[in-house]
């Protein structure tokens, strides 16, 4: 059977969208309110989906406690109640939720066996969300 298992995590963080290569006016034009110099924040919701066959001994695609330890340790504790712009991951990249989604994918995929991570889905608000399944998935 083709089965995936998804766990949802939550963190709250601030960010400011500002690209160094653009002028202050261009940044205001591109990012609008998100360019406010003092930043703003979101309650992010992250879905981590893993895939694979179900282990007949455990009934699991992956032990949820192991997934929680990985994602809480590498993602939630890193970003919760933090300013994303101060994170080393966002010194060269604007912390848009697209880039945050790819950054979370890199952090999680590094802790899983090859081929285990199906995708990362992140909601910035209830009305916008982003999904990333890695470059190979674009086929």
């Amino acid at each position, binding site marked *: *059977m*083709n*089965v*995936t298992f998804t766990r*949802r995590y939550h963190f709250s963080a601030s960010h400011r969208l500002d690209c160094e290569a653009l002028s202050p006016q261009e940044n205001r034009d591109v990012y609008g309110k998100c360019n406010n110099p003092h930043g703003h924040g979101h309650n992010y919701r992250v879905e981590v989906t893993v895939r694979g066959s*179900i282990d007949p001994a455990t*009934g*699991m*695609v992956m032990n949820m406690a192991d997934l929680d330890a990985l994602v809480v340790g590498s993602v939630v504790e890193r970003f919760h109640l933090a300013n994303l712009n101060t994170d080393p991951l966002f010194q060269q990249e604007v912390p848009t939720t697209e880039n945050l989604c790819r950054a979370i994918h890199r952090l999680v995929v590094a802790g899983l066996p090859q081929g285990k991570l199906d995708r990362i889905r992140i909601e910035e608000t209830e009305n916008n969300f982003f999904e990333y399944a890695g470059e190979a998935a674009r086929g």
Partner: protein
Amino acid sequence: MILLTRKAEFSAAHYYWNDAWSEAENQRVFGKCANRNGHGHNYTLEVTVAGEVNPQTGFVVDLKRLKDLMHSEVVDVYDHRHLNLEIPEFRDRVPTVENIAVSAWERLEGKIPGAKLERVRVYETPDLYADCFGPEVSR
């Protein structure tokens, strides 16, 4: 082709246990879920079917028939039951959310009138769900 999804809810008890293992091993792998007195959840079942729109009715599938089928095959069977003790497929299959999704798929497959079963999603909590796409890659 159109995808159509219907939700239903059921509440059930379960615990995680592998008879081939010692009590200590069950505790180590399954943690609190290995409590033999069981615990319970409000599950949400989401069934997605794929098909063409009937030009006369405008339906992919008659929603009432899909609802009745979800109830007769899954909800009425699992609701207010102890999955380990009362449901045949969980005598030798740990009732994880992955296996509940697989079992619901097996109960529904081939019974949807005029449409193909595309995905069965089971939420154990709002932060935890499994998707079953059937025996072949259907995405």
